[in-house]
Every structure is written in C-alpha cells, then in structure tokens.
C-alpha cells in the first residue's frame, strides 16, 4: 500500500512537472516575445511599438537572455518556495491571486459535484430498476442531451429563463446561494448525466450477478438488496469516472465562471489568457491540474478502502 502510494505520488509530481515545463516552454517559445509582453503591460501606451533598447533592458532585468531551461529551473525553484512570479496585469503575486480566487472555484465545484451525485446516483438506480420502461427511456434521452449539450449553452438558457424572464435569481455575481444555483446546475449537468449512465449500466450488470440472486433467495426485501448489495458494487466503476469527470468539470468551470462573473480560478485564467499574462496563466493551469491529480489520488485511495479485494503491494 505504502509502496503504491509512493509510486502514485511520484507520478503525480511528474505530471505536474511535465505540465508546468510544457507550458513554460510554449509560453516563452517566441524569442523576445516575453519582453515585449512585459513592456506592453508596463510602460508602453496602446499601439506603441517597443524599441530594441527597451526590449534589451527588460530582458536583462528579467534575465530573459538565459537559456530557457535555466529560466525554467529558476521558475521551478521559486515555485517550490510558493512563489509563482507576479502577474503582469494585476501587478500582484500570482500565489496571492490564486489563493484569493481558489475558494470560489472550490465552492462551485463542490456544489456541482453534490448536485451531480445527489441526482445522478438515484436516477441511475431508478433507470436500472425500470429498465426499458417509460421512465428509463425518458431519463436516457435526458442523459443523452445532458452529455451532448454544451455547458455554456445550458448556462445561457438558465439565465434566460430564471433570471431574465422569471427574475428569480440574479444574472451573475458572487455571494449567497441565490448566486450559486444557476452556475452549479449548469456545471453539474454533464457529470450528472455521466454518473447516471454509469450507475445505470453498473446496476444492470450487478443485478445479474449470482450474489444478487442468492441475496434474493435469502428472502431479503428488494429495497434492501438494491441499497446494500447492488449499489455499492455498481458505484465502484462510477467512482473512477467521477474522479475523471472532475477534470471535465474544472474545464467547464472556466467557461461557466466567465459567464456568471464568478470570481474563481477559471475566470482568472480566461482573463490571463486574453491579456497573455504568462505567469498568471501558468499559475492557474498549475492550480487546476494540481487539484485534479490530487482528487484522483484520493479517489484511488477511497477505491482501495471500498473494495476489500484491492490491496496494492
């Protein structure tokens, strides 16, 4: 177990390292580009073209003449100390900005996950129990649309209906539950649909297992069999998918946060990309990837806890 954990942690570190290295090199791929960008954000007026002296000055100030791998090494050393550089546009340390924005993203992601699980699991069970009946068909169509519909369109439709037309909730902003409802629903739809599908197929498969027939032969009530015997087994594969769809959710959060002016890491990332604020882009990407791999590590650990058959060497 310990061995396995160590291996997983090593791979996690490797992934994060690879992601940051890759983004770092790509961002600095255009020679002189970085210096120009910094100039644009600091001293230059709009439409003004930087002179070569200015570029040279900034380059030596920021050590941009060094080979890329040395720059990356320096960046990495700083990053390990919690210093991700400083944002060009906002002129504040990236770490500070991230810490400021992270709670909102976690709040939104947690709410969406909760909705997705709270709806997806029971509906998946209902689908399986009513296989090929009307309810099943209806929910399967809902699922198909839920999987295929772009989250940002759903968000717009929700705003159109609940904010613009019915005026029940505010169009955008950050605050209490009133502000949370629409973005959380929009973000949860896809994961909910995926969960529903997984639980449905899982349940159908499990219900045909001999241990369910044997449990039935013991005279146990159907409700008890579904909850105690079938659901746990059916949820095992769903767990892995949930971990993976968190990645989808974090990606979707970028768009949803932008639509709802939600002050999270996602909208920060979009702002950073639009302004080509390289340290900030990198910080955001690193944070999101970090969350994703960490959660998936936990999912794996939960898996070993739930399934007694798995004990990693």
């Amino acid at each position: 177990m310990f061995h396995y954990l160590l291996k997983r942690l090593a791979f996690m570190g490797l992934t994060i390292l690879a992601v940051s290295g890759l983004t770092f090199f790509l961002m600095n791929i255009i020679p002189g580009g970085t210096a120009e960008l910094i100039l644009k954000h600091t001293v230059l007026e709009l439409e003004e073209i930087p002179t070569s002296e200015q570029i040279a000055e900034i380059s030596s100030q920021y050590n941009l003449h060094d080979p890329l791998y040395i720059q990356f090494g320096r960046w990495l050393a700083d990053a390990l100390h919690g210093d991700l550089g400083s944002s060009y546009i906002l002129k504040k340390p990236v770490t500070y900005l991230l810490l400021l924005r992270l709670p909102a993203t976690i709040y939104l992601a947690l709410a969406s996950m909760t909705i997705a699980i709270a709806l997806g699991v029971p509906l998946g069970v209902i689908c399986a129990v009513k296989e090929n009946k009307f309810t099943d068909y209806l929910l399967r169509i809902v699922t198909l649309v839920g999987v295929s519909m772009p989250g940002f369109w759903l968000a717009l439709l929700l705003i159109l209906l609940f904010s613009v037309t019915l005026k029940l909730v505010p169009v955008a902003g950050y605050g209490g539950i009133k502000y949370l409802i629409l973005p959380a629903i929009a973000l949860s739809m896809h994961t909910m649909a995926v969960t529903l599908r997984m639980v449905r197929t899982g349940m159908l498969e499990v219900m045909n297992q001999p241990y369910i027939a044997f449990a039935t032969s013991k005279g146990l009530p159907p409700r008890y069999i579904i909850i105690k015997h079938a659901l746990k087994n059916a949820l095992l594969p769903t767990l892995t998918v949930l971990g993976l769809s968190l990645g989808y959710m974090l990606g979707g959060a970028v768009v949803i946060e932008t639509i709802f002016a939600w002050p999270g890491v996602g909208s920060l990332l979009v702002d950073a990309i639009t302004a080509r604020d390289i340290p900030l882009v990198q910080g955001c990407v690193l944070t999101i990837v970090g969350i994703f791999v960490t959660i998936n590590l936990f999912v794996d650990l939960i898996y070993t806890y739930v399934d007694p058959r798995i004990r990693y060497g």
Partner: protein
Amino acid sequence: MVKIMKSANYFGWHPGPFPQINWAPYHKILTNRTVTVCLMILGVMVMLSFLAPLITPYDPNAIDLKSSLQSPSVDHPLGTDHLGRDVLSRLLYGAKTSFLISLSVVVFALSLGIILGGAAGYFGGLADEILSRVIDIFLSFPGIIFALALIGALGSSVLNLIIALGLVHWASYARLMRGQVLSVKNNDYVSSARVIGASDRRILIKHILPNALAPVIVLATLDMGHVILSAAALSFLGLGIPPSVPEWGSMLNAGKEFMRTAPYLTIFPGLALTITVVLFSLLGDGFREILDPESEVMGLGAA
C-alpha cells in the same frame, strides 16, 4: 499473369495466408438503424453547410445596421444579429467552420497518435517506455485546461486552436494504436513475415498498419462530437476563431449580450450545436455497442 500478381502484392493485397481486416463488425455498423439514421442526418447537415451559398440569399458577413436585431420573419427565418447579419446564413456557414475545424483537429491528432502510438507499440523497449509515460501524462490531466494554456501561450488564432485541440486529443489515439499494434504484432503472419526477412518498414506498412488502423479511425470519428464541443467552448470564450468568421460558439458569445431583446440569438446556435453533438453521441453509442457489446457506454472526454 505473374506480373499482375506481383503488382497486386505490391499494393498490399495478399491472396495467401495473410488475414484481411475483419470487416464483419463494420458491416454490422451499417445495418444498425440508429447508426444509419444518424449518419444520414449528419450527411445532410454537412451537405447543407457546403451548399449554404446556394440555399441562403444572404452573405453571412454582410453588415446591415438598419436591420439589426430583427426577430425571426419570412425574410430572415431565424432573425438577424446585432450587426444585421442573417442568423440562418451564419448558422449554415458556421456548420462548415465547425466541421472543418474538427476535421483538421482529428486528422492532426490522429496522425500524431498513429505515428507515436505505432512507434511505441512496434519498437517496444525504451522507446515504448518513454512514449507510454508521455501518453500517460497527457491523459492524466484535463485536456481543455491544457488547450487553454496552449492558446494562452501561442496567442489565439484558428491554427493555434487546431494545434491546441490536436495536442489534447492525440494521446488517446496513441494509446489505442499502441495496443492495436501490440496485438497485431504478435500474430503469426507478422512473425512469419519477419522470418522471411521482410524489413521493419515493410512489415509496419504492409502488415501491421492496415490491421491496426481501423478501430483507431472509428474512435477518431466518434471523437468529432467532443472536438466540436471543445472548439465551440474555446471560441465562445473568444479564443481562437475571430468574431467575423461565422461559428456557433462565437455566435453564442456575441448573442448573449442581447439576451433580453433577442433571445433567439442565444437559442438557435446552441440548438444547432446540441443537435450535432447528440447525433455524434448516438453514433458513438451505436458503434461501441456493435464493436464491443461488453463495454458500458458513456460519453466522456475533454470539453
């Protein structure tokens, strides 16, 4: 006669013991009703998008501020946008943009995946070890975030959008291709080709590729829906496709400002997008059901 046989052989046709690609499952695909219907509808959509100039009298980019934000009418069945452009025309032209971009992404990702995955599977050893690790890494973080970072780094343009999405999608094809090559490689006829003394390149091109390729290409076709969604999401954020080019995502982005007065600008492009992706999802479910009845069907991929 001898000459004909030779040239036939040259093009990879084997009269003898070499197995042909097993077409049976693909034949089943075409007899499956859902799949056929989806393919037909998608075919019609592609045709409409390419015949758009013949169907609609409007130039999708013709700005006519006098007739801006008109509700759907006989002249403009789906209304006009804030610059007075005909929404139906833009939708049809936008379909072409979406299809072409997704196709480029898939072709790019596919080439990368087939080459790298094929190499990993075929050569094995250290090359495989390194490539597999790279594939693992690419598959272990959310693709859309990576695409965003790439566009942030390279700047936003159509080409960069295609590169970014291609780099996001190649790894899953590479993994499948690697597995395919591994399983084909261990077949008898490949070993016998090697015994005969055929060169690496020859074995790879003539014996392994044709047999390993088919499932990978099917997977790529099925991925089109995901790619269309990702591309639309990125252009909705204003990254990639310039606002002048008609595209569903950017139409939604522009339309959302006028939600109060012109909700149809929000509804129609999204509807077109959803219908297209639903068709691809259905197609994918159908394919997977046929090719691998055991696998549970689920649609999951990068946004």
